[in-house]
């Protein structure tokens, strides 16, 4: 049985950890609220963008366009959004797994653009090619960052360096549920058939400039908004995941402390009993 002193020391060390996890939980709770508000505000822009793009694609149907057909290169660019710091439960590793555990992807074909230090560390450890990384973006994403990244990706796509572009991020459903998601950015996927144009108001929408030219201009914006939206959701998810992880850690610490307190009291009682037995035994020997 561990000595009283050992148990006491252990207990105070766990108490110290518990205070840290408690504080981290509070910090992430506050950050989560802000990030969630931001993510919700950006959703409005994104959904309008999505509606417009789908309505254009619906009209033009299956047109030959450079952003709608896969490039000749077999390489795939993947934007991996993770956090810079750990202690967020499975948040980072789940996103990384989307890339490493994908049965259709070969390691040589992947070019990773990582946002967030954890993703970069993990992917280069697995031996993936990390083309570019920018770790500051995920701290507080602004739209200009997303714009820069999407320009860079489009350049690589147009130059034929990569044939497809994916986005690996964590979608924020609600405070407790965050879903690692893999999204295809380019070529823009459009599964639906051109709809019948009967009596619908939007069917007579005209475009200036013409459809194909409009696609040229709108699709990059669409991509930027996707990246931006993914960034916002990832930040919210990160803080949500960290909040949960820290909440678990705090309650685990609580459990351990109760357990140790019990052990300590038992050890104390044991030592008192032992002392008494010794005194009585000594007194008897003398008598």
């Amino acid at each position, binding site marked *: 049985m561990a000595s009283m002193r050992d148990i006491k020391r252990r207990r105070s060390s766990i108490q110290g950890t518990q205070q840290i996890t408690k504080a981290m939980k509070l910090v992430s709770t506050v950050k989560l609220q802000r990030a969630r508000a*931001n993510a919700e*505000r*950006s959703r*409005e*822009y994104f959904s*309008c*963008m999505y509606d*417009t793009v789908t309505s*254009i694609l619906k009209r033009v149907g299956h047109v030959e366009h450079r952003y709608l057909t896969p490039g000749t290169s077999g390489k795939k660019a993947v934007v991996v959004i993770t956090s810079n710091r750990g202690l967020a439960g499975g948040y980072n590793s789940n996103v990384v797994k989307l890339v490493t555990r994908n049965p259709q992807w070969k390691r040589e074909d992947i070019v990773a653009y990582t946002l967030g230090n954890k993703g970069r560390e993990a992917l280069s450890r697995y031996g993936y090619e990390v083309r570019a990384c920018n770790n500051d973006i995920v701290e507080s994403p602004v*739209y200009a960052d*997303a*714009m820069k990244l999407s320009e860079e990706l489009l350049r690589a796509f147009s130059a034929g360096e990569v044939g497809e572009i994916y986005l690996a991020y964590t979608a924020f459903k609600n405070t407790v549920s965050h879903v690692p998601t893999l999204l295809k950015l380019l070529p823009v996927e459009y599964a639906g058939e051109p709809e019948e144009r009967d009596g619908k*108001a*939007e069917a*007579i*929408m*005209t*475009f*200036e*400039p013409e459809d194909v030219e*409009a696609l040229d*201009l*709108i699709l990059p*914006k669409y991509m*930027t*908004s996707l990246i*931006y939206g993914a960034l916002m959701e990832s930040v919210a998810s990160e803080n949500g995941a960290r909040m949960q992880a820290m909440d678990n850690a705090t309650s685990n610490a609580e459990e351990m402390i109760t357990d140790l307190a019990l052990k300590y009291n038992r050890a104390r009682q044991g030592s008192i009993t032992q002392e008494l037995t010794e005194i009585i035994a000594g007194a008897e020997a003398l008598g």
Partner: protein
Amino acid sequence: MAEKNTFLLRIITPDRIFYENQVEMVEFNTTEGEIGILAGHVPLTVIVKPGILCISEPEEEKLAALHSGFAEILQDRVTILAEVIEWPDEIDQERASAAKARAEERLRSKTPETDIARAETALQRAMARIEVLK
């Protein structure tokens, strides 16, 4: 006829809803030239070019510098998805003037590396900012 001569204008940026109100007319630059929209316009989608956005509310006029994005125009509703847009009081005049000078300089001293299109957009942006402040 007098009852419905306004329409709903919504300007949405990635970070916020920039503006949402009933207006009489809105004017801005597009890739095909300047456009002014009244209620009951033909449904149209246009791409924005840097310039001034002029909102005519029933009582007053409002100006803003609109830099990029696109607009979806329906009969009773106009939605502008703006990537970058600023109210006059959000513009830093000195920065705008500096940016204008820089862009002009780049256009004048044309070297093969100069990205003309980019310098021109930068110039248009700076000019729109300065124009709105006037």
